């Protein structure tokens, strides 16, 4: 398995000032896999993506991508490595001053010397893959949320990366757009032979398309397994998360002193 791993996360820890976010996280992601990272809000999922992409430095441990330790690279080497990565941000992060066409062509123009005629063909092929070839002339403010994310997806596969990271790709989408994005993630991963990491809250949609799931809670990997294992898991955290239960290992109430004490009812007891 290790020889096939595209990404190895080894004993990774990260803190914001003195607040620990991740504590000794270990993961393996193979080529061609779609891996979901799930967990509650603020559990460190997006931080993990930022660590994998080298945007922030870990407190300890390391991330290996294609055999290279991301955090030991110089800035130029990191930028070279990032040409092999793509990232889909939560709301697309399209360049608002560029058209759909120019957004997708952006990386090709920045990193290659391809003639404009070839860039045109490639852009239209990428947009065709996400079903938006006919929208190439539109500006980002003319797109719906789902369309913007599909354009961002086309942009992130512009240079055929080895890895794409998706930060909450299903947030705020209607059921049709949600299904379209989910299927596109699976299809493009298979067609391009790349690895996809999906950070998401959407359990049902993501379990349909992923090969493996990691749950993060309190800064550690609380559970992991295949979608089948996750659905059948009796581990309290996984069960609560997958079935959306209100109370459990993640409590409904924020820690507080006793209710009676807050309402000053202790002395009124008969």
């Amino acid at each position: 398995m290790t020889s096939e791993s595209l990404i190895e996360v080894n004993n990774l820890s990260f803190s914001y000032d003195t607040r620990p976010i991740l504590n000794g996280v270990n993961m393996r992601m193979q080529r061609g896999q779609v891996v979901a990272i799930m967990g509650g809000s603020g559990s460190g999922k997006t931080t993990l993506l930022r660590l994998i992409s080298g945007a922030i430095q870990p407190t300890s441990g390391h991330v290996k991508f294609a055999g290279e330790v991301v955090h030991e690279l110089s800035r130029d080497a990191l930028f070279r490595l990032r040409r092999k990565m793509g990232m889909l941000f939560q709301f697309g992060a399209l360049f608002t001053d560029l058209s759909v066409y120019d957004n997708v062509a952006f990386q090709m123009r920045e990193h290659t010397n391809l003639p404009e005629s070839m860039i045109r063909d490639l852009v239209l092929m990428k947009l065709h893959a996400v079903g938006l070839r006919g929208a190439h002339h539109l500006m980002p403010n003319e797109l719906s949320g789902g369309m913007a994310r599909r354009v961002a997806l086309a942009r992130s596969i512009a240079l055929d990366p080895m890895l794409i990271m998706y930060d909450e790709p299903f947030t705020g989408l209607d059921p049709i757009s949600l299904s379209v994005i989910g299927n596109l993630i699976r299809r493009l991963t298979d067609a391009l032979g790349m690895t996809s990491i999906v950070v998401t809250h959407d359990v049902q949609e993501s379990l349909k398309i992923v090969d493996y799931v990691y749950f993060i809670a309190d800064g550690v990997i609380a559970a992991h397994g295949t979608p089948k294992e996750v659905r059948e898991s009796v581990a309290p955290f996984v069960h609560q998360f997958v079935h959306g239960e209100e109370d459990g290992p993640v409590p409904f109430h924020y820690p507080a002193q006793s209710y009676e004490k807050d309402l000053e009812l202790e002395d009124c007891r008969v």
Partner: protein
Amino acid sequence: MFRHALSAIQNIGHRVIEGMWRLGHASRFFILVLLKSGTSLRRFGLVIRELYFTGVLSLIIIVVSGLFVGMVLGLQGYETLQKYGSESAVGTLVALSLVRELGPVVAALLFASRAGSAITAEIGLMKATEQLAAMGMMAVDPVSRVVAPRFWSGVISMPLLAAIFSVMGVYGGYLVTVVFIGVDEGTYWSQMQSAVDFRFDILNGFIKSCFFGVAVTAIAVFEGYDAPPTAEGVSGATTRTVVSSSLVILGLDFILTAFMFRGVS
């Protein structure tokens, strides 16, 4: 009482340290922009595109303001000079006031309000909507690709806009004093021609506007890049750009004037 005084002193100390830290941070960012300006020079099209937004779109406010400032100068100058029988010197007064001071300073203040605030808001919003982060993830340096072209477009625009402001002011003065009041046209232009020196007046005014261009645009790009990625953060950064730029322009103007025109009659 003692505790309040101590708290106030601590507060002042904290603010001074924070201000110095921010100044250092801004200086480092300025040097970084200069070091990463290679892309702007190699792909000058990026700068030209920004020149349209910072320079060309500022033309209207510069032209109209220059015209009115010149008209007011002409009117006030004529009213004062005629008391001493020196109304023929009104052309000189208008030209020297504009070329030495009002052209660079007022054009820079207008530029800070019009283009500086726009640059800050644009970069700040790009940051808030993760466009800069997306660019970094695509292995494209946002400082080279977004910040440096905007910086250089501001530096190039500012002296040109100041020159246009001065020219429009001179014509505004001409309109009021020569066309409306009836000062002799030949006197207006010839007095101006003999009194305005290329080295001391026009060149120094040009140098001033270059300094202002660097200062305003450096503040604008820094505030935008450093803005907290929220609506409130971008709004605060935009306000800071206009306030800081205005104060820096006026302070710099005094320093530059003291160096340039000391001992010049």
